[in-house]
């Protein structure tokens, strides 16, 4: 396969960026999208040029490092698939591809296709946990949990924190990400004591980081590689309202 790539290049956060065009030759349909970029980078290095910087690590769809806009779609055209698991057989020979970083106020560009997603970490630090110290736990089976609840909590917990939901949203909303964590813990008995504070603190932090709010476009769910449901956003709204009305102290 031969492809023409238009790639966003930007030296660092403070420099202006631009699209540059590259030819990708000798591409096998069995290559992953990132392996295709590896091939392009090997040629760039041999020509004495700077390779295209992009995040990646596990390359099996679970670490959440990778993430690119491919022709305007976060993680590219295949459903439920991270960029590293997207294969070139999803494209046609001779196709032109536009490759850009996540675009969001909360995710400043660090270089080329690499963005700073530390805002997600700060949202988790604000309340995405159950406060239990090591060694203080009771026997695991002392607390039976309905299978349907455990399974539903798992579905929410499957989020890999890649940020595609934010990138796909016209409001750059992080509500799918936040709601997945809030839903996971609110479904489990272990999560009840901190349920209200968690919803309030995580939402507040999300707003401080400059992410927008949900206006029901469902773009996030459509691109989510783990198929996290927007039902959790509805749940988050309920959790947030209930907590706002009943919490003694809305901020810790």
């Amino acid at each position, binding site marked *: 396969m031969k492809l023409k790539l238009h790639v966003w290049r930007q030296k*660092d956060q403070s420099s202006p960026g631009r699209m540059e065009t590259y030819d990708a030759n000798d591409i096998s349909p069995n290559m992953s999208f990132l392996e295709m970029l590896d091939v392009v980078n090997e040629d760039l290095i041999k020509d004495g040029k700077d390779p295209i910087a992009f995040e990646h690590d596990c390359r099996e769809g679970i670490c959440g490092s990778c993430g690119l806009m491919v022709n305007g779609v976060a993680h590219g055209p295949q459903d439920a698939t991270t960029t590293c698991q997207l294969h070139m057989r999803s494209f046609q020979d001779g196709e032109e591809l536009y490759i850009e970083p996540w675009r969001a106020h909360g995710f400043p560009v660090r270089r080329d296709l690499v963005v700073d997603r530390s805002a997600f970490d700060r949202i988790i630090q604000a309340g995405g946990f159950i406060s239990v110290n090591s060694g203080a*736990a009771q026997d695991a089976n002392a607390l039976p949990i309905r299978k349907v609840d455990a399974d539903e909590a798992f579905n929410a917990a499957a989020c890999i924190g890649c940020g595609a939901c934010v990138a796909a949203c016209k409001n750059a909303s992080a509500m799918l990400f936040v709601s997945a964590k809030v839903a996971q813990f609110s479904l489990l008995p272990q*999560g009840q004591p901190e349920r209200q504070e968690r919803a309030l603190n995580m939402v507040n932090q999300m707003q401080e980081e400059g992410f927008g709010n949900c206006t029901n476009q469902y773009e996030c769910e459509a691109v989510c590689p783990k198929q996290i449901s927007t039902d959790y956003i509805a749940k988050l709204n309920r959790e947030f309202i209930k907590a706002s009305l009943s919490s003694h102290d809305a901020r810790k």
Partner: protein
Amino acid sequence: MKLDSKIPSGPLESKWERHKFDLKLVSPANKRKFDIIVVGSGLAGASAAATLGELGYNVKCFCFQDSPRRAHSIAAQGGINAAKNYRGDGDSVYRLFYDTIKGGDFRSREANVYRLAEVSGHIIDQCVAQGVPFAREYGGLLDNRSFGGAQVSRTFYARGQTGQQLLLGAYSSLSRQIGAGQVKMFPKTEMLDLVLVDGRARGIVVRNLVTGKIESHAADAVILATGGYGNVFYLSTNAKGSNVTATYRAYKRGAAFGNPCFTQIHPTCIPVKGDYQSKLTLMSESLRNDGRVWVPKAKGDKRQPAEIPEGERDYYLERKYPSFGNLAPRDIASRSAKEVCDEGRGIGESAFGVYLDFADSIKRLGEDKIRARYGNLFDMYERITDENPYKRPMRIYPAVHYTMGGLWVDYNLMSTIPGLHVLGEANFSDHGANRLGASALMQGLADGYFVIPYTIANYLAGQKLEKITTSHDAFKAAEEGCGARVNKLLSIKGSRTVDSFHRELGKIMWDKCGMARDRNGLQEALKEIPKLRDEFWNDVRVAGAGDELNQSLEKAGRVADFMEFAELMCLDALTREESCGGHFRNEYQTPDGEAMRNDENFCHVAVWEHEGSTDAPAKGHKRHIEPLVYENVKLATRSYK
């Protein structure tokens, strides 16, 4: 070099309990006076950093990824072992201990392994309390499945994403401590060197991967939880960034390395497809619960799998190991796959593959049940190969997965450098010559949640540690060394890329220090590696500059260390003149092709000491031994027949 394993005396069952009482404590008010550095944020690093933060120490935690949640523990699929005996199927702490010792082919320490089995149950309790959504039964209690090398069901799991859920649990605890200010987190920061003052580990030199700035951090103790070195083979199931730099730099500073040749080749991975391949993807061992492994009986049989009748198939694991069948341990399953492929019976285009067939299980249980158990793995397989495993057997082949070797540590998880502690896959201690499935997660979390919090207090309370800062000469010297190395890599401007060198090194290692090794091959590798290393330092081309986000430079530094470390691995493989676990020497096998141990001469840990300066490749490596003493277990020939 004096090796004191510090294994407590007394009966096996009470060693840890007694030892915990004998360890010195740091009082709650004094904990805040100590600074601890944790490098790595996987299961071992995150659990240690979180727990030490909870206890009141000042912790700094470092990871090269852009968030601690992305450490490669996240990719573990199948599960975590624990001796809960919730199934009532005959499990016990002693049985988990015994299975692990036997699985490791009698090359691990009894006391360490027993402690691991002992705390295994607490790990599950801890994780459930954190909200980890383990698989449950309709009654609301936790579900279990079985794994290789065991005849009981003791593996707890969260679909095919157990590592992810456990890591997110540890990450949430870590995040809580970061939010509380007890842990200061440094993501996108890579350790380049260890700093010693008066012979003790007192800090590290790091490179900020966003700005390129090289800087130092001082502390009272340093913990390395930096994972394994499987990427020395280039192609492995490890993440692209996993590397040996932290542990190898510590080795060059005087920490001894234990059993570097003990590497695990995982039997069920998706086969290599082309020269461009950048990594290999594991298909969880749990699939062997319901999948049957086979190849055609005839050589060169190119028919489609469905066209090969039952009578012309060889279910070789079931044939050779009737009592464990498809659940034979990893080393045995891998070697058997290699054998049938070497005989010319491999399948697929490359003929380096075997089938993992679910047809019988789908017939017995229905497609829905199989989907519920392994749906995400089947989807992943289809995305990568474009084949539907519900309709056609998976094609699998062994791939490098885990490294049992690592920095030598005593019972307190301290290396031969006072103050330097090593946890998880980065140390050598618990898995002997072969790790059983679902035991890596167990060990990482045991070390971080339940061992290091006790043992590090003993170190801190046991000496007078002068306060030092990073203005100390030792830090300045180490920083200069790291800066010089970066500049050297950038100045070569040769003709070959870092990846091309890494691939070549990987091929040498896979061919000569891989699934089967022999004297000639290893001696050849020991000649080829230094040659390739010289070429690397004369002809590598690293793009960009040092003071910016530069992924080409990051890779170059890691590959430079693999180039030295590979030699140590081959040397260890050459001098261990026996076959055991994942280390199979062609010269030492039984007539039916099984590993032949030599307990008389090799029932020990090979402990390597670096000789030479820190800024040049080793002048030599000196081999010491730590004899393994078995007081409870009788050394037996491992049999899974």
